[in-house]
């Protein structure tokens, strides 16, 4: 009981899986005191209209993000390499949606 009160709750990123078999998708963030707390708050804030069957929460501080300033060297070189898109193949009917 001697822990000092948290004046600011850390930020958490919330990921929700909408259906079994689909991936978890980022849907927003919230403030909570710990992981368990964040999960419950995510349930109340992000799944109240039946949006999900599973929730992940991740401390926002654990996410390493690319820098907006790196945009030119990170992303632009891909723009003229259309051969990286699998659009030159015929997909057999039986495969269905890929």
């Amino acid at each position, binding site marked *: *009981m001697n*822990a*000092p*009160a948290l004046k600011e*709750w850390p930020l958490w990123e919330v990921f929700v899986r909408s259906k079994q078999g689909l991936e978890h998708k980022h849907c927003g963030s*919230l*403030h*909570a*005191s710990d992981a*368990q*707390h964040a999960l*419950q*708050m995510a*349930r*109340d*804030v992000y799944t*109240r209209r039946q949006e999900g069957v599973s929730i992940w929460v991740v401390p926002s501080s654990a996410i390493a993000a690319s820098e907006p300033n790196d945009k030119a060297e990170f992303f632009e070189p891909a723009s003229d390499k259309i051969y990286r898109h699998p659009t030159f193949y015929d997909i057999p009917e039986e495969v269905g949606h890929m």
Partner: protein
Amino acid sequence: MNAPIDYLLQLADNAVILGQRNAEWCGHAPVLEEDMALANNSLDLIGQARLLYQHAATLIGGDASEDTLAYFRDVPDFKNYTLCELPHLPLMSATACGDRDFATTIARNFLYSALMVLVWDRLQGSADAQLAAIADKSLKETRYHLRHARDWLLRLGDGTETSHQRMQAAIDALLPYTSEFWASCPQEQAAQANGSGTDVAALRTDWNTIVDAALQEATLTRPADSAFLPTGKQGLHSEHLGFVLAEMQSLSRQHPGATW
């Protein structure tokens, strides 16, 4: 076999009055996430009340509807536990104003939902098929309400010196009101007799286990049982219920039959 109407009303009145009380936090909760959690809880309770009122209204027949039962009955007609109608600051007079006490909200939701998970669980086997179906739906909601309240009880009880003190004060103030759970009343006896209800007194040991374990984990002390016995479910209420109804019913009474 239908449940006695007064028994359905008791269950519905508990839900609607506590739902109305918890809705008072809407827009005022300590943080946005908690605002939504309490609004969700409130809407769950009002949803339970609606199903129970609709069932009761069908049995009553005539012009009875969920609206007449919720909005056009007066204090002595309501059969909710006194616990459910208390303001979020239990030791004030009915007209007094003060900052809402979150610990009081949590203590009440904890004590009530610890009972209702047991009651709904038993009522799933009610001889009244409609009530059994309502119990099935309500049980899932109430399990979450218990989890939410218990979680905060632990955090605040085993938190800082101030939060511990406030949580303890809320438990001290509200626990005596739970004696009403175990005192049998005519509608409960009638429901038990025809197989639609359950013997609530038989749930006391299980309820004590839930409450004692949580209080211990939260480093809180359970106050000794007292001889105090509230009588809300008999229609004899505290001075607070009139103010709750005044706010809850005023719109319907000013504009009877209005729809939107």
